């Protein structure tokens, strides 16, 4: 009868769904599954897909996230030269051996991170304590061991994780924050303040001395330019004098006449303007005004 067959179909469907739900499981490509038989892990499945198992309580499936997780930790550490540093690192880790991981942490990632915390703390004191402050921050490239410290910490934690059979792998580690204790920051501010002060006065005096240097160099340069020009001018004048010397040769034919002419020109230009003359009446040709005077030369 139709009714019965319907019921039968529905029942079968339900049974299949229930059976599938109890006896099948999926492994996502981000996970690894650990199958336990009566609580004891029997197999791990890393390949994603659908799988069969016996229904509980015979088999149980535990899924473990295989992706890389981020873990951060913050700690105050002492450097080898006695500075207090506040160091914060982050760690990328994942579960690489679910068989070890599972019994150890019961599949709980947060429990694993608790143990990881301990490992990181060991690395802080073990690694950081061997480095001076200048390996963390320095303007000298040679002094800096920033990446080396990260590497050392990473290796240390990796080794510890392996030795402890945690079943986890530490993929990378980075320093994400570097600080000083609160009381020290105050001192740093004071030091920075005085550094600024020194800088201000240095810049000021630098500016003044630079400006003075430029000015005096300019003075020197212009004096040199003027001296050069003056030298050139003297040379030009000398050339002129040299040229006139040729003309002076002409005068040598009759020095008396030459000297007369020169004197006359000189006298004339000397008496050119606004002159007051005081003369002896005997000066020729004023002596003509005297009675009985004769011109001595024309008389000849």
């Amino acid at each position, binding site marked *: 009868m139709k*009714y019965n067959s319907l019921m039968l179909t529905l029942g079968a469907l339900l049974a299949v769904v229930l059976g599938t739900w109890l006896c099948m499981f999926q*492994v*996502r*490509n*981000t*996970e690894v599954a650990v199958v336990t038989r009566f609580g004891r892990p029997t197999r791990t499945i890393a390949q*994603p897909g*659908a799988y069969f198992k016996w229904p509980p309580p015979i088999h149980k499936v535990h899924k473990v*996230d295989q992706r*890389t997780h981020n873990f951060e930790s913050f700690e105050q550490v002492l450097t080898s030269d006695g500075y207090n540093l506040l160091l914060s690192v982050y760690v990328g880790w994942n579960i690489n051996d679910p068989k070890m991981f599972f019994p150890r942490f019961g599949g709980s990632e947060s429990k694993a991170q608790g143990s990881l915390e301990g490992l990181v703390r060991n690395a802080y004191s073990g690694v950081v304590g061997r480095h001076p402050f200048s390996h963390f*921050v320095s303007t000298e490239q040679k002094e800096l061991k*920033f*990446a080396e410290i990260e590497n050392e910490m990473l290796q240390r934690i990796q080794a510890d994780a392996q030795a402890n059979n945690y079943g986890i792998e530490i*993929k*990378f580690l*980075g*320093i994400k*924050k*570097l*600080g*000083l*204790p609160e*009381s020290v*920051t*105050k001192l*740093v*501010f004071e030091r*920075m*303040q005085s550094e*600024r*002060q020194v*800088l*201000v006065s240095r810049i000021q005096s630098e500016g003044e001395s630079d*400006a003075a240097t*430029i000015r005096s160099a*300019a003075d020197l*340069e*212009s004096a040199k*330019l*003027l001296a050069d020009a003056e030298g050139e*001018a003297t040379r030009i*004048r000398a050339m*002129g004098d040299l040229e*006139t010397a040729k003309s002076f040769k*002409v*005068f040598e034919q*009759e020095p*008396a*006449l*030459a000297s*007369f002419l020169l004197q006359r020109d000189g006298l*004339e230009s000397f008496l*050119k303007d606004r*002159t*007051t*003359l*005081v*003369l*002896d*009446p005997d000066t020729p040709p004023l002596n003509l005004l005297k009675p009985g005077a004769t011109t001595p030369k024309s008389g000849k």
Partner: protein
Amino acid sequence: MPVEPPPPPEVPDDSSSQALSDALKSSFAIVKVLMIGLVLVFLGSGFFSVGPQEKAVILRFGRPVGEGDKMLLGPGPHWAFPYPIDEVVKIPVSQMQSVRSTVGWYATTPAMEAAGTEPPPEASLNPAREGYLLTGDANIIHVRGDLSYRIKEPGLQYVFKFANASNLVQNAFNSAMVFAASRYDVDGVLTRDFAGFRELIHQRLTQLIDQQQLGIVIDQIDLVAIPPRQLKERFLAVGEAQARRGKLINEARNYESQAINNARAEGTRRKAAAEADSRLLVASVAAEAERFTQLLPQYRNNPELFMWRYQTETFQRVMTNAQEKWLMRPGQSLRLELDREPPKLKTLPQRAAEPGH
């Protein structure tokens, strides 16, 4: 004794059983329709669309469908079996992602930032709340960084290999900032070589992304770097001092160019004057020589007469030009006032000074 076969079981009630069977039939039909409907809805719920900036991967029973690049579905409508058979994972490949690094920034709240205010600076920095970076010269500065990045194709790494990839990207960015600051001095970051500082962060971050296989591409890094707010005035004072130094040096440079130009001009002037003087001298001496040559025959003819004539002629000219002339006998004395007033002042009202001559 013949046993009567028992009467066939009585159909309880012909009409009522008919009604029940009818009801069952119709409800059966309804259930059928419902079930077909449910199946259709179930299958129809498998439709999904991939946006233009996305790729998608179908996980069937947890395993990606397709091999290699074929598992990536491009933009457009797609279909997958509904849960629990298939799972659709979308990868925002070409979409810009961004993270902000505040390990180097002082404590503030989004509300304060929106309002443009900041908490008042305290005398010291509480490491639990306040962020800052230590520079190579052990100074404190604040740097805030914004990183824009894209997921590198095909993006499977980013989606499937990390529990929280953007968190790791942010930490790599933080680490690169701490790394870069640790080798720069405070003025290098704030003024002298800010571009170099950013470049170093970029470089270090690229390195970390490669090492940690984060599968992203850096698009842009924006940084804001400021001195500690506690020392704002001090740092401003340094800036002012630098400006003053610049001004002093500029003034000196101005003076320099002016002085040299002046000297050059003066030099040129002097040379020109010398040239002119020299030419004038040469010309006048030449003219003199020529006159001499012309006069020479006359003079040689009769030197005495020549001299006398010229003397007289000259005397005449001089006397004409002279302003005042005095004749004095030998033995007469003359008093001379040397302190004559400048000619300009002669127009002023007469002074009491007597004009002694």
